[in-house]
């Protein structure tokens, strides 16, 4: 019995290792299959306080291929991907809707004033409820939504310049037909 006690750390580690292994097979950068090809969740967000951009709701995401980006001023990787979002909006003319998660409006406004605003619409998700509806795991996250308002692709973490050519743009082009 006492010997078993000393083997306990090994057993616990074994359980942990299984979790790690399962974790590796799951790409945190991929949506749980449940949301892909499904309509975007029902949500409705007020505009970002003090900003010109209108708010964001489920009905706004139809009729056009769009990106939905979840961002916050307190999130350092969001700042890394910001220039990429600016390029997408300005050079490629892709409409991006922003969900501003758990942020102070003043901070968010300041960030957009300083680094440029790539968003056509911004929903202020003050309490993070809408982000939960979207199944957001860590921010930044970006979704590609097709004309019918269905989620077609999810990118977790900052979009790096190489992701643009490798994944985001090909998918958008394919959906735009």
């Amino acid at each position, binding site marked *: 019995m006492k010997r078993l006690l000393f083997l306990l750390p090994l057993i616990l*580690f074994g359980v942990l*290792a299984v*979790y*790690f*292994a399962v974790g590796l097979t*799951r790409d*945190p950068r991929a949506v749980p299959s449940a949301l892909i090809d499904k309509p975007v969740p029902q949500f409705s967000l007020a505009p970002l306080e003090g900003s010109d951009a209108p708010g964001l709701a489920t009905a706004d995401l139809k009729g056009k291929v769009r990106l939905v980006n979840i961002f916050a001023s307190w999130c350092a990787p969001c700042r890394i991907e910001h220039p990429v979002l600016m390029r997408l909006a300005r050079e490629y003319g892709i409409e991006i809707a922003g969900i501003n998660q758990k942020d102070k409006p003043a901070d968010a406004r*300041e960030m957009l004033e*300083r680094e440029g605003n790539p968003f056509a619409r911004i929903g202020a998700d003050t309490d993070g409820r809408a982000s939960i509806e979207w199944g957001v795991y860590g921010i930044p996250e970006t979704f590609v939504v097709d004309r019918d308002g269905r989620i077609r692709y999810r990118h977790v973490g*900052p979009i790096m310049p190489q992701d643009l050519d490798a994944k985001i743009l090909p998918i958008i082009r394919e959906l735009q037909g």
Partner: protein
Amino acid sequence: MEVGKPAALGQFALVALAFAALMHAYVVSDFSVLNVVQNSHTSKPMLYKVTGVWGNHEGSMLLWVLILSLFGAAVALFGRNLPPTLKARVLSVQGLIGVGFLLFILLTSNPFVRIDPPPLDGQDLNPLLQDPGLAFHPPFLYLGYVGFSVAFSFAAAALIEGRVDPAWARWVRPWTLAAWCGLTVGIALGSWWAYYELGWGGWWFWDPVENASFMPWLAGTALLHSAIVVEKRDALKSWTILLAILTFGLSLVGTFLVRSGVLSSVHAFAVDPARGVFILALLMIAMGGSLLLYGLRAPVLKLGGLFAPISREGALVLNNLLLSTATATVFLGTMYPLFLDAVGGGKVSVGPPFFNATFVPLMVPLVAAMAVGPLLAWKRADLAGALGRLKAAAALTAICVLATLYAYQGGPVLALVGIAMAAWAFFGALAELADRVKLFRAPLAESLRRAVNLPRSAWGTAVAHAGLGIAIAGMTGSTAWMTEKITLMRPGETVQVAGYDIAFTGLGQERAENYVATLGSFRVTAGNSLVADLRPSERFFPVTRQSTTEAAIHTNWVSDLYVVLGKPDEQGAHVVRIYHHPLVPWIWIGAIVMAAGGCISLSDRRFRVGVPERRARPAAPVPAE
């Protein structure tokens, strides 16, 4: 067995050669090497060309192995007092870890991949990383992470030998202490960088990668303390061995988390699943193997001396219980999203509220006991007597709390608890020193003589404990009493924050090797006297098309005034963010004091000269399992 020493030295020399080769490629901007192309640029300042070597995944792994083999070589060189069998086993375990990671580099992360034809120029390092604080953050952090490998190797070697005694603890402690000092400095540098570079004035975010460095620190702190019990009292042996294994295990888990991308984080290195699988395999071999060894061998370790609950040992056990609970808490918070996802429970994130609600309450009893512990006697102690000797510290703590109450007219209760903890830790450490040198109870000359003769380890303990007190004061002050002002300002305008008048006097431009900057000039006055001229700036890096904010910080060592300049709007007004952070510099001063305490303890005579009670009898041969 004699092969160990030349092999360890040879491994170090060869890895150092490889590292020097990579560094050379960076310094001369050799763009036929892919790694240099992706992370460097001819216009990058020399400092960042050099530090860019470890600013990327491949190079940082090479640094990891370099430090690992450095520790191996150091054990080979300085371990003259070690029994030959123990030394050979330590070096072979250390060498095995090295082989594992070298294979990892060779198979999945070769830093020397060439490209042909070489491009004209590189893609530059992420400008956020071009910063002195972050340039030296990884080497210190790795010194800590990897330094714990020595404790691990010693633990594995002791299990193979089947014998743990006070001499063993005495050999392990300096390595653990050195690693702990490195990790303390490394974590402090990282948090300092986040504070001044990210531009939001925060210094800790409970991000998975921050936690990954914090868990080995907590476990390593526990290890340092439990090894004292083994050294002095020959007790807690099997627990100490387990801690040594777990501390390095947590360093490996940290590496796994950062490199495999199972949790997404601020510190996103390029993620490649093959790397994750490889590190997981390494982790399983290292941890699975050593824990199996532990399960088989730990039961045969002889139990050591007994002690009453109220005793120095008892206090150190309490320290260990609290620190390991804290480690487990941080571990759970960090891993919970992974666990939940693996069982199909969906994706969640665990944020600072969880950690604040669970971690802080564990620290309160830890700090409360910390001041008392060093005053307790070994085996059986007199708690009332020890508390009696802390009367002065308790009185000073009460004064600090009352002064805080008066200065802030109340303030959040938690902040008062924080200040009480800080003062208690600080004055408790001083009281312990005063008690040991019989300050005011013996003639001054006698006290002075005692102070000089006090072992360095006692000084180290007191200094490190006082350092923690200073750091807690900093964390409390900056969390509870920060004031911020975000406002639109034009040159010529003045705002008031925390009793200072801050005038925006002008704008300028500055051009450097690899960026252009917009500079703002701010004049800070209090009453009629000039406090500081602050020049926050915003830098734009044309190569990566990214910009960074450079906050201007004026510190008077008791509080920071922190000014950030934002982009202008169409009318030429700039968003200016001004923060007043009371006590925040103390966080890093405290961390440096803690590391200094570790270094003082490291210079203790016991570690420098031979071990007095070394046992001549060689280890009894143990039948193979």
